[in-house]
């Protein structure tokens, strides 16, 4: 059962103890995709998802933008450089960071209703 409220970004923040790096909008997510391989994301991620990755390189923003990914969650407390955050903000991609591992974050997100 899908909880509509839980698929909205700000509501998911608490579930993964995430901290926003950009301004967050009240957006509905279409789902979630987890991968640390950019080409895999390009091939398989759906538009409008939350992408969970450990990569904080500029190319993450490029790929996210290309696939119209709504938000990116960096795990293990990782955080990109300020210039990259600014670039994401400019392209309308929301960025968050969580101290959890990718596995933990995935479990919490699933539990919170993001399917």
């Amino acid at each position, binding site marked *: 059962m899908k909880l509509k409220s839980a698929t909205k970004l700000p509501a998911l923040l608490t579930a993964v103890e995430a901290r926003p790096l950009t301004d967050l909008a009240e957006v509905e997510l279409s789902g979630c995709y987890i991968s*640390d*391989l*950019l*080409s*895999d994301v*390009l*091939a398989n991620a759906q*538009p409008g998802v939350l992408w969970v*990755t450990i*990569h904080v*390189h*500029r*190319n*993450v*923003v*490029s*790929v996210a*933008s*290309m*696939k*119209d990914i709504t938000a990116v969650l960096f795990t293990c407390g990782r955080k990109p450089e300020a210039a990259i955050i600014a670039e994401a903000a400019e392209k309308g991609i929301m960025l968050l960071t969580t101290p959890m591992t990718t596995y933990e974050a995935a479990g919490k997100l699933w539990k919170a209703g993001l399917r």
Partner: protein
Amino acid sequence: MSAAVPVEKKRVAAKAEQNANGHKRFKSMPVRLTGTARKPAIAPEGTLKAGAAEEPAAPAPAIEKAPGMGEKRQVSFVQMLVFELRVRDAMTSPPITATTTDSLRSIQHLMKAHRISGVPILANDVLVGIVSIEDIINALDGGHINESVEQWMCRKIVTLRDHFSLVRAVAEFDRHGYGRFPVLDANNRLVGVITRGDITVCLMHHLERRAEEAVAKEATLVATRAADEKAHRIVINTDVKSGDFESAGKLSQRMREVLRARGVAPEILRRAAIIAYEAETNIIIHSLGGRITTAIDAIKVRIKAVDSGPGIENTDLAMQEGWSTAGPLARELGFGAGMGLPNIKRCADEFTIQSELGRGTRLQAAVFLQKADTRL
């Protein structure tokens, strides 16, 4: 004594002399040769003093400084012309001549009839002298106008070779102060006469022709651009550097902006962007550098990625998902999934790849802009 002169002083002195010469020589040129004071450009000067018949190759002058605004192009153009054009291009040919047995009176009539101010004198088809309007005036004054040319013509003749450049011809005019030069070919045969006026006319003529050519070329360019615009064609060329991970995605970003502005459907736009991005990162990760050309028209977007090596050893293997030769740095950044080429192929409506070890790889892909089905 020369050993006592400091090198620098000697150099300065030599330069000053050269400038003085140059100024003297070029002072009455119709177009000033400003800024050509580079050695190759003034090479004719050295040969002038020696009076050698052979002319050194005159390279196109390098323009360092041009006088005034807007003149730069034109002056450099004329400079190119005076080095390019030869005496034979400007001279009057065949020349009006007379023989040693003719009278000065007949020369006077020749000058009047042809509106010229000097006549070369031939004996058995060999140039032996010249009679100028000044000689005619002197003859009228001295009362020997009806005598034969033989004893009154000027025998000390300075000639030019037909292959001399116009810049050298101008220098010779300045050096000798004559109004005209007989022109000889390689076999010492008189083939023409050249005056300053001939040089000016020749330059004007060529300038006009070049201007016409430029106008025609511009018209063609405008027509091509108009045709491109009509076909809604845009071409984006981007050089991609090896290892430049920071720049990855810039090309596909630009391409996406163009496609989005044209209202291309998001799925199609995404496929084209993925092709461009994967092709771009392939060049960054695997090649020595290359170039991506994106051509967008009303029908499709074509992406051509060409790199300068090292080439793919086994393209069939490279097309397999999961097979990658990416290095540790690329993998650390999330590349090297071994999905690049398969991704491109899956996104493309048309796809070809050719690769030769040691030569490079050429990838071409196209996406139709109208097709509705989505592949990703």
